């Protein structure tokens, strides 16, 4: 996993609540057996006027000029500003893969759906929860100031605004450390292999029916 320490990035605002993972990456693109290549189809149904299918050349598509990602001022954005309950719905990690593949490394919202939130950390994407009033203020600033950028510092857990103001954010320690180090969580868990085996041995005595192989 790519590690995350600090990012100075352009912000793109997506001003709607309850953005679900079906919207982030529609189902026809989930047929891929790869982890990459989802970026051109991020928000496909909002981003294009024609119907997208896997394998289509993005250059041949009809972009929806009204959709934020297609507006020239937001090209190259790496920070997505969103509303409540971002990433609700399906558990598809493809949603995070699509954001990452497009170039988004930070999503800021007042709240996230649980599975999406957890999926972000497995892929080097940082979801930041800020109170609704602060998010609202950021929306207004982004709209008012073309080229609006933020500096996100995970070590200090601070967001720096263009005028130098700093906003602190919360994140749990384990997830932060994994992201900072780009750690392989499976490798970490396997360091406790003996404890897992001891647990299995005890449970096998207490609840043997759980260990009947299928």
């Amino acid at each position: 996993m790519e590690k995350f320490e600090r990012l100075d990035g352009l912000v793109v605002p997506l001003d709607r609540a309850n953005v679900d993972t079906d919207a982030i990456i529609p189902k026809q693109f989930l047929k891929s057996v790869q982890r990459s290549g989802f970026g051109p189809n991020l928000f496909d149904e909002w981003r294009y006027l024609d119907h997208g299918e896997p394998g289509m050349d993005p250059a041949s598509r009809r972009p929806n000029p009204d959709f934020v990602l297609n507006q020239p001022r937001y090209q190259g954005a790496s920070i997505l500003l969103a509303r409540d309950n971002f990433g609700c719905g399906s558990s598809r990690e493809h949603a995070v893969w699509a954001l990452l593949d497009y170039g988004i490394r930070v999503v800021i919202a007042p709240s996230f759906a649980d599975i999406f939130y957890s999926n972000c950390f497995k892929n080097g994407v940082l979801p930041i929860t800020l109170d609704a009033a602060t998010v609202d203020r950021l929306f207004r600033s982004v709209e008012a100031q073309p080229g609006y950028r933020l500096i996100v510092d995970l070590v200090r857990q601070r967001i720096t605004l263009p005028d130098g103001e700093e906003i602190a954010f919360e994140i749990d320690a384990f997830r932060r450390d994994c992201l900072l180090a780009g750690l392989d969580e499976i490798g970490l868990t396997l360091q406790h292999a003996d404890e897992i085996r001891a647990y299995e041995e005890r449970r096998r005595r207490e609840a043997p029916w759980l260990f009947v192989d299928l």
Partner: protein
Amino acid sequence: MSGRTLYDKLWAEHEVRRNDDGTSLIYIDRHLVHEVTSPQAFEGLRLAGRRPWRSGAVLAVPDHNVPTTARGAGIADPVSRLQVETLDRNCAEFGITEFTMDDPRQGIVHVIGPEEGATLPGMTVVCGDSHTSTHGALGALAFGIGTSEVEHVLATQCLVLQKSRNMRVTVDGTLAEGVSAKDLVLAIIGAIGTAGGTGHAIEFAGEAVRALSIEGRMTVCNMAIEAGARAGMVAVDEKTIEYLRGRPYAPKGELWEQAVASWRSLHSDADAVFDREICLDAGRIAPQVTWGTSPEMVTDIEGRVPRPAEEADPVRRRDLERALEYMGLKGGEAIADIRPDKVFIGSCTNARIEDLRAAAAVVRGYRLADNISLAMVVPGSGLVKRQAEAEGLDRIFREAGFEWREPGCSMCLAMNADRLAPGERCASTSNRNFEGRQGKGGRTHLVSPAMAAAAAVAGRFVDVRHWDYR
């Protein structure tokens, strides 16, 4: 010290270790796998040179991409076919039990788990699928995970998790005739919102929940995620035990007796304290119909579509306007005046035998309305299909003009060939009415099986409480 909730008990029993940072390493008893969210996980294992920790704990089945028409010809779409073949190959390589597409037991992963007795009370159950919460109906801790976590469970049989908060939704009273588990859960989501359970594990309790069959409880737990909760659950009772008795993978003989004795403790203690409590009166719940693009955008059959002008909050008003525009509604329409073009009866929410029976009872002796261009029934599994056919339900549906299909996820998410065309309106027993969920531009109204069946016959939404059964 106060008592423990069902969730507290399930969590504690599966805690391998507690880390200094407050997370826990949680042991996973049952891992369900389907073709969409697993290929990258298996590939990750291979790249790291790892093997599954306990392949005997894993059950795999292709369900999202499979065709629901005749299977003999295989899958026409080469991309879908590759994904299903990749699952077959991965299961063969890693020694994982799979019900392949032509297996009579194949079906939607959340239907076959309980049906086979492969998911049991007291288990931790995961799957790369948000509707894994379904299995909580058996008194299990069951929740959806992402693909990285699928790989983590394959490699370690564990997950690093932060414990959720406890929430209880108590529904007392009695559901009226014709009002089902689906109406109950839609009413709950309408009351607490799609983020109402975020960060919580929900226990569904109360007289009306206890009165539900296990299938009905599965419908309720299935949609816990639509209320934002990763896990939903119901305490074990005699119905749970009777449901599981004799299932193929359920314990047998002495092991069964031992298991049942243990399962009887799977309920919240009387003095357990929940972080959040919600109470509803079942007697006040009427058949529900969603009108928007989020499951919380719901009202009952006697209701009307809301008018954006009456919404004070500007963000909500904009979302409401956007939803109505997408749905082709102006606001203010009576639900009973909405006319669907298609009807879909199926999905992990509502494709069990009880659901098909409820729908068939409504349809019996009637024909599809003229404005219904397609009505399809997609059983949840091969065994549900066989049972329904043994009861003659397929004939009732066919005679009314419904299509009777092969099992799979089908038009719940339209990854296979079954989908809506832009602008088409569908009465659907599935779980999500998101934009584009059933096909780009498709308009979904979530309802119960009986309500979907009645809409197919009447050509508009009607109150199934007053249905003239033939």
